[in-house]
């Protein structure tokens, strides 16, 4: 079990989400930075989409009631275990009763805390992900509060093996300010000036960003654009142009359909970049082809699979893990 001592402004339990229900209007949900969730879980030897804490901007603390291996990934934060600084993207060992304190966010916006064995909560529609608008999933369908106690899952034997140097080559989305995107269904409808602005401009992230989407201050000229088009399916990563000339990049809890013009879609491999931009930080877009998008996603998958094979060699059937 872990107990929340001092809750951060906004922390929830998230996993890989519950795709499959978009026809019913339910977004897939789950971690807004899936890469960092998978990385943190992989480092502690869990399956990559095991339920973990998703912790947005702000300090807080929690206590482990049993000795536990854990890992921080995503945002870079100041953190201490019983007063001793801990590093992110490393395996850390808390003793029974150990207290983890998270302080300021140095870079990035979204922190994941994965614990060996995972967080154990009831699954709804196959997932532990908290879906706030529906008030279900996670712990009572809400953000975490002081005194909340969350059960931990069964640990596996043998314990995970981790070497600090293994993560040196892995990307850090929190330090990236450019997201790759593909032109969307609304690209052709934009004026030349609007198009130039979307690909060239460093947009500022609005504080008004959440798990639904990241809002970007745009001042994009919207003359002649039809804002009354019929609502149509959208996915996380979809860039929507609102009538005030700003942009929203949808994230995991974004609606399944939307009526705004859609100039583009951020590629899956760069959703973590969007999820990690802090309010006030800048974000640029650069256009790529579908092939580049697919290659980037496949590369991220194989990097994590290679890491998982090192951490859990007993589960790997690969005789030799190249690339590390």
């Amino acid at each position, binding site marked *: 079990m872990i107990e929340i001592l001092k809750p951060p402004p906004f922390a929830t339990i998230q996993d890989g989400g519950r*795709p*499959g*229900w*978009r*026809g*019913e*209007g*339910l*977004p897939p949900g789950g971690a807004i930075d899936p890469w960092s969730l998978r990385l943190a879980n992989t480092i502690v030897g869990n399956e990559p989409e095991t339920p973990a804490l998703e912790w947005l901007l702000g300090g807080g603390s929690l206590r482990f009631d049993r000795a536990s291996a854990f890992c921080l990934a995503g945002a870079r934060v100041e953190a201490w275990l019983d007063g001793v600084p801990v590093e992110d993207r490393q395996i850390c060992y808390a003793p029974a009763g150990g207290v983890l304190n998270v302080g300021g966010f140095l870079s990035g916006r979204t922190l994941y805390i994965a614990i060996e064995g995972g967080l154990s909560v009831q699954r*709804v*529609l196959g997932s532990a992900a908290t879906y706030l*608008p*529906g*008030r*279900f*999933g996670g712990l009572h369908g809400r953000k975490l509060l002081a005194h909340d106690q969350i059960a931990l899952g069964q640990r596996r034997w043998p314990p995970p093996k981790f070497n600090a140097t293994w993560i040196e080559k892995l990307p850090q989305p929190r330090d990236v300010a450019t997201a790759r995107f*593909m032109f*969307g*269904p609304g690209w052709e409808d934009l004026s030349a000036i609007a198009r130039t602005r979307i690909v060239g401009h460093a947009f500022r992230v609005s504080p008004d960003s959440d798990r639904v989407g990241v809002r970007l201050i745009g001042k994009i000229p919207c003359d002649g654009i039809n804002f009354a*088009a*019929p*609502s*149509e*399916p*959208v*996915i996380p*990563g*979809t860039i929507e142009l609102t009538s005030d000339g700003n942009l929203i990049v949808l994230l995991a809890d974004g*609606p*399944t*359909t*939307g009526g705004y013009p*859609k100039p583009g*879609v*951020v*590629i*899956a491999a760069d959703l973590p970049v969007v999820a990690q931009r802090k309010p006030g930080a800048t974000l640029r877009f650069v256009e790529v082809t*579908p092939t580049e*998008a*697919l290659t980037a*996603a*496949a590369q991220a*998958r194989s990097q994590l699979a290679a890491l998982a094979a090192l951490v859990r060699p007993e589960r790997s059937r690969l005789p030799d893990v190249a690339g590390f």
Partner: protein
Amino acid sequence: MIFEAPRLEPLGESAFLVRIGDDVSLKTNSRAVETAAALRRVLPLRIEVVPAFATVGVIFNPATDSRVTVEALITEAIRGPRVVAPQPAKRPQIIKIPVRYDGPDIDAVALRLGLGRKDLIKLHTGTVYTVMMLGFAPGFAYLGPLSPKLVLPRRPEPRRHVPPGTVAIAGAHTAVYPLDTPAGWHLIGRTKLVMFDPVRSPTTLLHAGDQVVFEKE
């Protein structure tokens, strides 16, 4: 308008939009719902097919299904001869939604439309609606078409919250808010029916293509 041939557009690397037409008419929409059914017949179950007013979304995981294969399957399904699923012999069941017409906007709406409250209720209950699509929130069904006498633009300032079960109108549509969400539509009543429940099967009361009437409680 329904396009001569459906258009296939990429939506990122893991989804496609099939564009059937460019309006919110029942005719275009029923073609979209029909196309969604045709796509479900050819695509593996793990691929999501989402009908909307004039488009159908196809969302897949490129780690499981190759984009080229998905694109080919969609193209085959939408280019080939139209296969209309056999109609059930019986008329489809009409889902009845009992409503208390006491929403906070009902009098203002009636006034703006130049109607009495009773006429408004009569017009709202006097139509068999089709569920055109689900979206915006889980279980939120866009029902249409609304009587032309009830058509109003959305409210300029959306409300931040609305109680689940609130019945509303905007544009050519009516809907029931399934959850406490922001609401830009005009609130005319409420129902006790639960539109979305994640632990119920099926989760949503209404599905695209269903027929619905509202009844004054």
